[in-house]
């Protein structure tokens, strides 16, 4: 079994090997520790001159990454917990994202900022958040989220080696130990991948009739959405299509609209609270196109911080039951045969 963490780690090694321009910076990233979530394990041993352990200075190291990128390097900055991105927000929003455009394309910033996000590890309110929604819609900043499907390492490689603009690369903590699911071996599902650099996947239950509902998800939520898709099919004879995004911002409306044009029902699934979130943007895009023909809903966390105690955390974060309930509330009739 290959885990998402294995793939990400191998991808980092591969990028360092592929190009001398790739520099890795972060807190506690040297061996034998290899970073808080071990994505960098082995990296400093293999590339001691290009792996830099830094002081606890999230704004500083993202800014240093911007500076290195301006001078032709391809820096990868690890932020230990996504919650700490707030400290680097100025560097991402006012510097990384703007420099290329503001300079009238005289410079570019090929920077990747990688960070783990998400809850269900009991870390409490400031180490369990899903904060990427605050970085969506920033002109010039791409937000990408890995999931357990297909090729997580390839997704990271695309961001590091092929993208000349800044990428915020989000990794949900629960994905690290998860097995990578091959698109060709999804068991109860058929999967399809778009041809874009940051792919969009669509997933259906094998042999299911035409979908009557579009689920949209990313990151770890794709796992919960797949489980919900199966239960909707087997327990309720409601057949849906799950559209999985790896690029969260800017949103590519085409695959979303294509699916919703067939289903006219959209349910978005995210781990953050839904207020002003990713799902809100998708629903708005669909509503602009389909107007009164659209039925839509959003699933996300309750509008409160993420608590530490297990039962409390479970009550706040969205689960499979929440997805099922929301899907059934969309007034979906049993799929026609």
């Amino acid at each position: 079994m290959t885990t998402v963490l294995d793939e990400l780690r191998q991808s980092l090694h591969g990028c360092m090997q592929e190009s001398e321009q790739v520099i890795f910076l972060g807190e506690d990233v040297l061996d034998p520790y290899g970073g808080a979530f071990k994505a960098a394990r082995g990296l400093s041993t293999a590339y001691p001159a290009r792996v830099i352990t830094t002081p606890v200075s999230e704004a500083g190291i993202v800014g240093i990454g911007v500076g290195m990128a301006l001078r032709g390097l391809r820096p990868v900055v690890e932020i230990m917990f996504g919650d700490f991105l707030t400290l680097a927000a100025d560097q991402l929003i006012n510097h990384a994202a703007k420099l290329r455009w503001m300079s009238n394309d005289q410079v570019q910033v090929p920077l990747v900022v990688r960070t783990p996000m998400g809850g269900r590890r009991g870390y409490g309110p400031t180490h369990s958040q899903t904060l990427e929604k605050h970085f969506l819609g920033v002109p010039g900043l791409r937000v990408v989220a890995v999931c357990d499907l297909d090729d997580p390492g390839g997704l990271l490689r695309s961001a590091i080696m092929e993208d000349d603009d800044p990428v915020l690369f989000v990794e949900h903590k629960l994905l690290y130990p998860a097995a990578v699911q091959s698109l060709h071996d999804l068991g109860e599902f058929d999967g399809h991948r778009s041809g874009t650099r940051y792919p969009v996947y669509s997933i259906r239950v094998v042999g299911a009739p035409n979908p009557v509902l579009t689920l949209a998800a990313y990151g770890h939520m794709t796992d919960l959405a797949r489980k919900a898709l199966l239960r909707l099919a087997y327990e309720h004879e409601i057949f849906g299509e799950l559209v999985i995004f790896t690029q969260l911002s800017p949103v590519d409306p085409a695959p979303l609209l294509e699916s919703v044009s067939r289903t006219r029902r959209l349910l978005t699934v995210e781990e953050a609270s839904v207020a002003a979130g990713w799902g809100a943007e998708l629903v708005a895009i669909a509503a602009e196109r389909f107007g009164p023909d659209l039925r839509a809903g959003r699933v996300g966390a309750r509008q409160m911080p993420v608590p530490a105690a297990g039962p409390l955390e479970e009550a706040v974060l969205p689960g499979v039951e929440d997805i099922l309930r929301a899907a059934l509330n969309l007034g979906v009739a049993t799929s026609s045969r």
Partner: protein
Amino acid sequence: MPTSAADFELYRQMQRIRRFEETVLEAFPRGEFYGTTHTYVGQEANAVGVLSGIADGDVVVSNHRCHGHFLAYGGSMDALAAELMGRQTGVCGGRSGSQHIQWKDFYANGILGGTLPLAVGMALSEKRAGLGRVVIAFLGDGTLGEGITYESLNMAALWGLPVAFILEDNRYAQTTPLRLNLAGEMAGRFTAFGIPLVEADTTDVLEIQAIGEKAISHVRSGAGPFATILHTYRFAPHSKGDDTRDPAEVAHYRERDPLPLQGRRLDEATRRDVEKIVETEVEEAFRRAAGAPPADPSRLTEPLSGYA
């Protein structure tokens, strides 16, 4: 005594900045520019003195008060005037305005302190590249209030990077005087990180040039970062109409105006020639900028083109 070429050039550069900035302040009320501006009147000797020592390929990182740095760096006066006037021929085609100038190895941004880690990152790149290039990073006394300043100083010193920090203390952060902003000593903020420094209270461009040369040769030698604290004064408001300082205080500092100080080193006829040459250059720059086509909205592109 005949005027030396070096004295001539230092005076000419300072005069270019002075007259450019004064023209901006005169013309602003006529609505010829967009947004706001932060002029460098009074501080000219700093940029001209320090940047006279840079080499091709060296990086200059500037702040909101960037016109003087840009002109001393060698930036085009025409393009700067055009940028302020929102013309296609502006340094950044009208996208950046007064305080986000980018050209060659010159980078300015209006977020105080936000540019300092960029300067450190560029110095890290240059150290790795090993071509002997250095980074000159300007900051003001106001930026000492930003936490990112200290993250940047720490890493620059920790990694021995070729960056010279040029702190221009003009004694006010916008309208607030130092005594309401700053505890402790300025120098201590650098020495705490083991960064050597020179501190000077002067408007003499020759003295500043010597200090700048020391700073640049230190960082170019690979000895790590160096700091320069230049106590100075701006004669004009922070931006346009926001001057709350006692006019008597401004008049006091005007007595040490860096331009007459350097002008006295030129013979009278030469000094007049310089002023005439600069006057023509500034007039022409603004005239050409005014005649250039306005920035064209149809040329606006979205960043991150496409979804690929």
